[in-house]
């Protein structure tokens, strides 16, 4: 209820703001909605949205898979941690823009370079979070699995992964929002389609309506993914936690 009220206030403020600033600087909700409908009708919305979503999905999976593997390795093996840590610090502190530009310079304005640039931006964050999880693994449970001669696959699935899961979920959550923001920059700089590319065009035409329209649609899409995919998965993974007698 409070949520709805808050959204209503946001819409009201938006409307009032557009009245004061003028349609050109800040178009009102009605104009933006009309623009969304127009873009959807022409097919441009679906084209750009799907291109961006595909890049988000690819870069996100790549960064999560690689980051989890490296994070586990660095959390468990001291030498790997010592060797990898300086690299991690460099990656963490490298601005996203630098990575993107270098990726385009070295790899050309290609899809592979674009996705690699986004994945590399997200990678260190995943590694750091999962490494924390790997460091916090309970040695008592590990010993239990060893005494009872649990096969390695089973031990990873039932003993290690559930302990990593909260860290993985945290990395995934912050990752999804980070990745889609960087994907837009990558598209703006060197892709012929996608929401970021559309933003670039709209910027050159000073078409604020279109910028807000695309941004709004994308936020709604990401929120939907969060509610129908991420949250149920998290609930499922932590169901043992909530039910205390």
């Amino acid at each position, binding site marked *: 209820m409070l949520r709805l009220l808050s959204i209503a206030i946001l819409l009201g403020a938006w409307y009032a703001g557009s009245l004061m600033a003028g349609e050109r600087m800040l178009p009102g909700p009605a104009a933006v909605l009309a623009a969304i409908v127009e873009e959807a009708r022409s097919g441009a919305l679906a084209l750009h949205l799907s291109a961006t979503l595909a890049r988000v999905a690819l870069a996100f999976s790549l960064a999560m898979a690689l980051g989890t593997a490296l994070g586990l390795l660095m959390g468990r093996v001291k030498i790997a941690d010592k060797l990898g840590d300086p690299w991690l610090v460099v990656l963490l502190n490298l601005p996203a823009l630098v990575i993107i530009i270098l990726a385009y310079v070295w790899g050309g304005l290609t899809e592979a370079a674009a996705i690699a640039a986004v994945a590399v931006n997200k990678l260190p964050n995943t590694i750091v979070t999962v490494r924390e999880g790997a460091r916090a693994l309970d040695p008592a449970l590990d010993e239990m699995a060893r005494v*009872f001669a649990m096969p390695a696959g*089973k031990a990873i699935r039932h003993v290690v992964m559930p302990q990593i899961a909260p860290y993985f979920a945290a990395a995934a959550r912050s990752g999804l929002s980070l990745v889609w923001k960087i994907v837009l920059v990558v598209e703006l700089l060197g892709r012929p389609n996608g929401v970021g590319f559309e933003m670039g065009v709209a910027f050159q035409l000073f078409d604020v309506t279109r910028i807000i329209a695309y941004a709004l649609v994308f936020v709604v899409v990401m929120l939907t993914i969060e509610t129908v995919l991420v949250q149920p998965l998290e609930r499922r993974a932590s169901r*043992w*936690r909530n039910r*205390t*007698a």
Partner: protein
Amino acid sequence: MSDARPAGETGRLDVRIARKSFPKPSGDRLEVLRDIAFTVPRGRVAAFVGPSGCGKTTMLRIIAGLDRAYEGTIVQEFGGRIGMVFQEPRLLPWRTVEENVRLVAPDASEATLARLFETLELAPHRAHYPGQLSLGLARRVALARAFAVEASLLILDEPFVSLDDALAARLRGELAKLIGSRPVTTLLVTHDVEEAIGLADRLFLLSAGPARIVAELPIERRDDVSAGSRVAAIKAEVARLTSAAGVPATERSAAGGRS
């Protein structure tokens, strides 16, 4: 001292730990175990009693294969699997009671599990998560897990510590029932002489660190022991040995006639 047993006996657990030490922060090493040597014939129960912190858990960890940095040999002639009850239940909190047991014993039949859950009064808790259980129940699940694997060696590290006396006594009875139903070589560490007498065939008395075996007492078959006089005799002997060997008497063995 354990060499008193006739040679050539087959299927026994043979433990020889010459030395076990841990590095100290100061640089030199702290010796925890020295010249631990004993043999447990197949299917027998050996209990170890000693002051807390004397290295009993370290000894069990070595026998369980969790700690390989020691001087000596452990020979388990019959090979096979190990079932262990740690001092804490060590259950997987994200798996149900039944899953916790099934994960380590995938070959256990439904009938075996049902009987085990029945004996330990866990049947109503099969679908519960460990976080929903009391410590007593969680310890029972740990017992069920150790028995479900049908191990050739059972290691129990103070399985009833920090439970109230009544519950500990009941669980002890259940444990005796389980051991009786399927003879398995068992090592039991406890600070409770009575518990040792009630469950074991043979009692080993350990000294304070570095732990050595200072005495080995045979215990008559469990059925005769309940008579009481024998219990008192063994307790007196333990008390005498502990004082003679300079072992600080544990709270319970000093308490004498407590039951």
